[in-house]
């Protein structure tokens, strides 16, 4: 039964035109030749998983990065063909690509659409140039507007914009303006992230040395609350802590993560989850290349998820969703009762009014969304 369940596919493109100040993903600045060579290596890696994936139809693909939109149109068509030839891609599969506004011309958009990609996720982040500068982003709102228009002309309807609140210097008005801007374009999906300062990033260093000040919890909280309120008014469903969509436009790929389902991951530093094992690919281009040339899986670490961790993951991932965790589905998946297993935690959280029981579901309350970390940590 299990081996026939559909799976998601993540492909990591570790190249960027430049590195953003808040980014802590594995990426480096690369040119077109390097990218083409990288795609040839990806082809090898895809080939190595062909047999393992024989009975696992692919329901979603996500090209993440880095900046996948650096891949030229022809190469994307070729890569998608390689994927189709190797794996069983479901006809209704969601195929997303992350893109930087300003890197997509009409021809590329056309080729991408032709290749089978049907969803674009733009990293807009903000529409005010000073804020974009702080983030180290090189585009502007105008470029974004034009590309969305062009993308639509090429038949892309499923479009997301990532926007960020809590940027140093950002005022509530800036944030409302950004929301207003993206909603007026009728984008069906929005990811609204609060800025985090991850160690090792440029922005973390800027904060540590005092060049920028975090906005402060009160304002960030207000921004978070305002986002939920306004987007709901405008017909978006707040379906996950940071994600909003028009009905029917939830990101199915990301739902795979939150529902703790498996996904194949390919490319440098990609993280996958296959046959009960979480693995991480090597993060050095040199290792990736030499391993693939020797026909070795370019995996750096493998970890079989213990039963104990497995149930916890289901909890802390699932609770991120507004729909929460279905007790029935939990039971079906884990063959154990969620309420029984986490009796103490859930009782305490209910008492603290951080989660609530809605029929056969356990969900975050509004306060639970504000303080989600306090909830999730109980399931670690």
């Amino acid at each position, binding site marked *: 039964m299990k081996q026939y369940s559909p799976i998601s596919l*993540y492909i990591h493109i570790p190249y960027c035109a430049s590195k953003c100040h808040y980014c802590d993903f594995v990426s480096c600045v690369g040119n077109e030749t390097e990218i083409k060579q990288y795609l040839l290596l990806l082809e090898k890696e895809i080939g190595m998983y062909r047999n393992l994936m024989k009975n696992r139809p692919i329901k979603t693909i996500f090209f993440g990065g880095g900046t996948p939109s650096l891949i030229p149109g022809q190469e994307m068509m070729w890569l998608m063909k390689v994927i189709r030839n190797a794996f069983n891609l479901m006809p209704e599969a969601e195929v997303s690509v992350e893109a930087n506004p300003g890197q997509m011309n009409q021809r590329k958009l056309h080729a991408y659409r032709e290749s089978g990609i049907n969803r674009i996720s733009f990293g807009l982040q903000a529409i005010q140039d000073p804020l974009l500068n702080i983030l180290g982003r090189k585009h502007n709102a105008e470029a974004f507007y034009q590309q969305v228009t062009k993308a639509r002309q090429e038949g892309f309807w499923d479009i997301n914009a990532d926007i960020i609140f809590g940027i140093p210097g950002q005022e509530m008005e800036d944030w409302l303006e950004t929301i207003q801007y993206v909603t007026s374009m009728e984008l069906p999906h929005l990811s609204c992230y609060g800025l*985090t300062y991850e160690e090792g990033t440029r922005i973390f260093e800027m904060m540590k040395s005092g060049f920028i000040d975090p906005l402060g919890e009160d304002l960030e*909280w207000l921004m978070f609350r305002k986002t939920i309120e306004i987007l709901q008014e405008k017909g978006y469903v707040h379906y996950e802590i940071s994600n909003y969509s028009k009905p029917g436009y939830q990101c199915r790929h990301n739902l795979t*993560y939150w529902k703790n389902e498996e996904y194949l991951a390919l490319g440098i530093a990609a993280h996958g989850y296959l046959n009960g094992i979480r693995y991480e690919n090597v993060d050095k281009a040199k290792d990736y290349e030499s391993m693939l040339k020797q026909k070795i899986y370019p995996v750096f670490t493998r*970890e079989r998820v213990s039963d104990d961790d497995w149930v916890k993951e289901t909890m802390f991932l699932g609770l991120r969703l507004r729909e929460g965790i279905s007790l029935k589905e939990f039971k079906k998946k884990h063959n154990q009762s969620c309420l029984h297993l986490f009796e103490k935690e859930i009782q305490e959280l209910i008492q603290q009014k951080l989660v609530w029981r809605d029929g056969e579901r356990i969900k975050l309350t509004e306060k639970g969304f504000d303080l*989600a*970390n306090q909830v999730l*940590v109980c399931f670690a």
Partner: protein
Amino acid sequence: MSANRQTKTRNFSIIAHIDHGKSTLADRLIEHTGLVSHRDMKEQLLDNMDLERERGITIKLQTIRLNYKAKDGEEYRLNLIDTPGHVDFTYEVSRSLAACEGAVLIVDAAQGIEAQTLANVYLALEQDLEIIPVINKIDLPSARVEEVKKEIEDVIGLDTEGIPLISAKEGINIGDVLEAVVQRIPAPKGDEAAPAKALIFDSIYDNYRGVIGYIRMMDGELKKGMHIKMMAGKKEFEVTEVGLFSPGPIEQESLKAGDVGYVAASIKDVRNCRVGDTITDAKRPTEKPFPGYRKVVPMVYCGVYPAEGEKFEDVKDALEKLQVNDAALVFEHETSAALGFGFRCGFLGLLHMEIMQERLEREFDLDLVTTAPSVIYQIYKTDGEMVSIQNPANMPKPQEISKIEEPIVRASVMVQNDYVGSVMELCQERRGAMISMDYLDKNRVTLQYELPLNEVIFDFFDALKSKTRGYGSLDYEMMGYRESKLVKLDILINGEQVDALSFIVHESKAYERGKQMCEKLKDEIPRHQFAIPLQAAIGQKIISRETIRALRKDVTAKCYGGDISRKRKLLEKQKEGKKRMRQVGSVEVPQKAFMSVLKLDS
């Protein structure tokens, strides 16, 4: 040989202010005499604990036998007895000096004489030692050899004609030191035929041989099989081994008058082999033990608790093991409502306390919470009873107290002229009363103050260092007890009194300290889902208050792509942190909060 035995022996110590290069010189002497080659030399051989090397101070004494062929062509046996370099260990220093006939006094060529230089010189003079001044670090650009010479002459009154001018670090003129030791330090003059008489100047515990006493033979002879008696401790033992260190222990047939070495006698408890005690022949005892023996008494106490409750037994075990090696450490069981089961430990001073804490954590891999250090207060109750308390939690109710006395020390601070004002200000702030102020020369001043010990243990040394840009040096000795207006300050978190945070403070400072405590705790305690009041109180009276605001937003936006393992590990780490917090009512207080209040910025 026998005739030459003592005439060709020199027993000496090296004394210095901290950082003036004591251990480095010891290393060079060892190298120079060829005992250990440069290649095999661990940096500072005598400081053999990692901690000692890191902190640059000697904690446990060491002793070593060096064979030196002097310029007169004769072979000499030099016994170098290392001394601990800190005011907490004054007694140990004085006992090691008592085992010598002379001392090499190192003075830093750049810094000149410091408080501990003088304190050590006085100790050496008390023992009637021949003192050889040596000016070290002459290679430094800031070296001011002539001025320092003059300081030595004027302040200490020692002749500096032809004294060794060296750089221990660079190995310059090390031979001069050895020559001076041979020529100037008198040979021991013990009576080999007299009853055995040896001074214990240190002891360590060895897993196989029991307690090893480091001894100086004054008269007579000790050998295997002899029955010995500890004259102060009154216990008797049979000698299982005698020997010397060169550098490792080397068994000898016997130790005779004038020798420095070790004795093992299946002694199980280090408290039966106390520093300062006299060993003699049980059958033919010497008449008079060495004068000045005293049992060391702790001056500073603090609570030591395992960070995780279940490790109580491990802490007990570790303390017992440390005590085996350190007779100055005392501890007894205590219980705190906030911290659970733990121990009240007594130390010689702040440094001793810090070192013990670090050793517990490092050598025994323990995670500890320590409470604010306290001195011993003498409380006279209205019913006439006097109680000594070293734990603020045991303080009687205010209405039962007729008066409180606190320990007072005589502190000497040596400092550059420029900083005299700041030091006086600091001492005044700390309730000090000036005893004297003496100019060593036109630049340097010794200030003597009477200071309450509880002010000294509270961050005084750090404050002194910062007010004098690191130049001020401190030494202190106990003077006695004096009545004082002291109060017990309690801290309440969310309305609950936290016993581990209570401390005793002078009335005039209670308000300020209470305020600082609340402010500090406000930074240390993470925000909760509810607001948390923090209060400082004397009895029922609240004297300060802060509030930790309720947490409004704590949500991480993204889920790290597909890197679920990372997310899980992050959550696990957070949970681990939460688990290690102490529950005070419904408030989770990090361990760190209990310790951070030990050092408040003044």
